[in-house]
């Protein structure tokens, strides 16, 4: 047997490993750099066992020593396994505890957020309700004032500005109230068996009167009947909102198209405009609360950023959906709403 046969090289390697493990384990045992005390102790003992398992080969050992040397091998394995178990298990246990603590924190934060959300909804509801109360007498007083005084010139202009702003405030308060209802899950729609066609005709007729000053054409197309279950008032609100948006973004001389059709077992209404169009980023956030795209400079219509969020809430309560299609900037947009058709639909 030479010094460089496999047995001696192995003994050298295992003894050296033992020394390294003792150094690593003892260093951590003393300074607690990486390992906790228990795995560090086990590693040190595993290193000692490895060393005393193979190092005796170099000094020579008798047959009597053989069982002790073999026992060192077993000790090496046991301490190594214990080190790995305590080290690895400790890491996983600590992580599990950290996760548990984080979950508790998240649960508390969630509770606080829910409470804050509830308070916010109550606040918005209360504010919108209290703001709505004085608006009606204000509107009446403005009309009385305009009629009684027969105001002309600057006084008439002032009254018109006042009237416009009161109307805008009224819209804002109405939107805030709807948002509060949607957010708190209290918005109710009364679904009744109806025909959508008269609703479309009524909204189209009313909307046509607002287009004259911008020279925008309104085109419309729908079949003779479209039986659906809907809340007429809420559906009118949705359609009027979509048409108002289309008017806002359609340049003078442009066209708005209102059409409806039966698509499968659903009724789809589309409001298409020839306006600025939308890119993908805008389409993605359009139905979120307070989300607005930049109004064209020539328009004096300013939205609240709540209209489409409310439309989405209303459509969801109809069991329907709302989305927008646009090929990009300068290529117009098409807002689509879809609700289930009644069984008797053709």
């Amino acid at each position, binding site marked *: 047997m030479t010094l460089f046969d*496999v*047995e001696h*090289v*192995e003994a050298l*390697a*295992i003894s*050296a*490993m033992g020394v*390294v*493990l003792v150094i*690593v384990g003892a260093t*951590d045992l003393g300074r607690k*750099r*990486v*390992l906790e005390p228990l795995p560090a102790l086990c*590693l040190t003992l595993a290193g000692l066992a490895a060393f005393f398992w193979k190092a005796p080969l170099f000094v020579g050992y008798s047959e009597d020593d053989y*069982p002790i040397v*073999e*026992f060192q*091998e*077993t000790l*090496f*394995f*046991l301490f*190594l*396994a214990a080190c*790995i*178990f305590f080290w*690895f*298990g400790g*890491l*996983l246990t600590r*992580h599990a505890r950290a996760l548990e603590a984080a979950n508790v924190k998240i649960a508390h934060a969630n509770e606080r957020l829910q409470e804050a959300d509830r308070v916010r909804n109550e606040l918005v509801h209360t504010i919108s309700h209290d703001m709505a109360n004085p608006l009606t007498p204000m509107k009446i007083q403005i009309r009385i004032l305009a009629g009684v005084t027969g105001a002309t010139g600057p006084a008439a202009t002032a009254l018109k500005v006042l009237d416009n702003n009161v109307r805008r405030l009224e819209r804002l308060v109405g939107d805030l109230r709807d948002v509060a209802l949607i957010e708190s899950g209290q918005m109710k729609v009364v679904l009744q068996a109806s025909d959508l066609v008269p609703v479309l005709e009524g909204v189209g007729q009313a909307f046509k009167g607002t287009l004259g000053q911008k020279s925008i054409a309104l085109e419309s197309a729908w079949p003779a009947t479209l039986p659906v279950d809907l809340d007429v008032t809420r559906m009118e609100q949705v359609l009027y909102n979509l048409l108002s948006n289309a008017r806002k973004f359609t340049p003078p001389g442009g066209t708005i198209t209102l059409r409806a059709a039966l698509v499968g077992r659903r009724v789809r209404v589309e409001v298409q405009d020839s306006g600025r169009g939308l890119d993908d980023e805008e389409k993605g956030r359009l139905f979120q609360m307070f989300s607005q795209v930049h109004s064209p400079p020539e328009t004096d219509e300013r939205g609240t950023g709540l209209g489409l969020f409310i439309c989405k809430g209303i459509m969801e309560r109809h069991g329907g959906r709302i989305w927008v299609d646009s090929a990009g900037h300068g290529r117009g947009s098409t807002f689509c709403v879809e609700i289930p058709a009644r069984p008797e639909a053709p």
Partner: protein
Amino acid sequence: MANLLPPDVAAVASLVAGCFAALLVMGSLWRARPEVTGPRRGWLLVSLGVVAFSVRVLGHFVSSPAIEIARGILGIAGSALLVTGFLILRRPRGREA
């Protein structure tokens, strides 16, 4: 089992302890994230080292020159794997890719 001598029992105990440790680490590494357990490469090397030593123990039950050489090689490889693995695991976090 009645015919097993103390060294045989010790070899079986070594085999079981080593395999259990290696299986524990390898099984957990499959799902645990490196930011929790430390570098995967380090644990993998340690596990392979333990497996090498465990397989080496099997040679205890068979005696032949070829097996002795194989045991020697496994012992050398196992030592290298264990030392490298432990050193990687003890490196400060952030240096491991």
